[in-house]
């Protein structure tokens, strides 16, 4: 009789225990974190290559470099482009890591990595009015041309639904007047927040190139 009672008691405890386990797992908030992974590929260099659509021999290249991405000196010596007025250019944006090991002969091209990650990256262009106050840059949608000195149309798009622009390949249309100004180029990393506008996300690289627009380009 005593043994019977023990068996009943033990069974009841085990069943009650399983119910409590169910209850506790009901109320447990499981959370997992993938910690910060250091060593994202740095981008030291942004290169703009502009080719006149109507005069293929009219090519210019602007190279902005900051080898030490932790606030090191910036090399502006080649960071300039000269474009003709009333002209259309195709502009390619190249991203490189020139801080490659000495043993390696070639720079590391980051552009293909950004191309592969285009669903959450966007290149933005705007005028830096701090030096040339009247220089205006627009990135209009396809079709309209504004009165800005520089109109930049992003030609490439991503695989989102609907597709959103990326900006690695662009069409640049210059205005009718001679002008000069500073073009601010930023690469935005927008994981799950890419919506076609520049503000969301973080900035992978911010570079500036001086743009000269002249009717008589030499």
């Amino acid at each position, binding site marked *: 009789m005593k043994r019977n009672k023990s068996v009943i008691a033990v069974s009841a405890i085990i069943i009650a225990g399983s119910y409590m386990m169910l209850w506790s797992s009901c109320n447990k908030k*499981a959370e*997992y974190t993938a910690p910060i992974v250091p060593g994202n590929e740095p981008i030291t260099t942004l290169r703009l290559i502009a080719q006149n659509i109507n005069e293929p021999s009219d090519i210019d290249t602007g190279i902005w470099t900051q080898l030490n991405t932790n606030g090191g000196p910036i090399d502006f010596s080649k960071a300039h482009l000269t474009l003709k007025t009333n002209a259309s250019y195709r502009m390619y944006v190249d991203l490189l890591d020139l801080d490659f090991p000495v043993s390696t002969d070639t720079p590391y091209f980051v552009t293909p990595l950004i191309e592969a990650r285009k669903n959450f990256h966007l290149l933005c262009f705007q005028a830096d009015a701090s030096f040339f106050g009247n220089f205006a840059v627009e990135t209009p949608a396809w079709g309209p041309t504004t009165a800005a000195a520089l109109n930049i149309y992003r030609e490439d798009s991503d695989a989102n639904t609907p597709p959103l622009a990326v900006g690695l390949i662009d069409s640049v249309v210059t205005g009718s007047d001679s002008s000069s100004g500073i073009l601010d180029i930023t690469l935005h990393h927008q994981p799950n927040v890419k919506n076609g506008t520049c503000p969301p996300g973080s900035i992978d690289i911010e570079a500036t190139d001086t743009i000269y627009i002249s009717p008589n380009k030499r």
Partner: protein
Amino acid sequence: MRKQLSKIYLLSAAICFVATSRGFAQEPDKKTRDYPRLMIGVTGGVSIPMGKFAQTIYSNDATTSSAGAVPTVNYNTGSGFAGTGGNGGITATYLINKHWGIAELFSYQQFSFAGGQNMAYGMQAFPGGFDVDSVTFQVRGNSHTFNILIGPAYTMSLAKKLDLDFRLLVGFVNANLAGNNITLTDGGVTDPTFYQAVSWANSFGGQLGAAVRYSISDHIGVALNADFFYSKPDFEVNNINRNNAAGREIFSYNEPIEGINANLTLYYMLQLH
């Protein structure tokens, strides 16, 4: 599903055939019992998921046609990320005669979430994820089922106070699939959380099992059960605030919820008439 059930029916028929032949051979002490009898039990135990429902694989592989092309990631959309959980319920068996009866089960079954770290790492890395500095993955709700099942039961005596019970139960299953919240942080910027909502679906399901039952007294008994459970609900999955085509994202889930329940049942038995 039909194929699976027909296999279950065949298996149970075979078990019943073997059991019947054994049962007839050793029943002298049960002749004094009167039927019909009713057994009402409280049951609880461990639920061990199996198959794709228990898989915790984020993606199988990724392929790319050329440098710069967007890699095609073969996400494992069948992974259910279900871990071992528990179940509890009320069961009753109405024994028409010394071998056959009708059993029913009202039960609740819940699974833990397994492989959450895989989801966090998968969402962080590239290809397969968003290529961000950090990901926080939080489980939303839980995967569970409510079951209302009924079916034939067969019992046979093993010894004076020891019985072997078999049952095949089928019926209604209401299932829930756990969701998740994902928060991405990159370059010191934490983006708004997006989530996979908890999903639910109704389905036809079943359970096949055996139990060893020990009669402590004329009215009280305790049983150790092992049951295979199966249902295949067709979940429609909603993703909220999911803006860009990156990372594992499912829009439906139609894999079997299957596994083993290992339970202890405390019975109260009474004679009806």
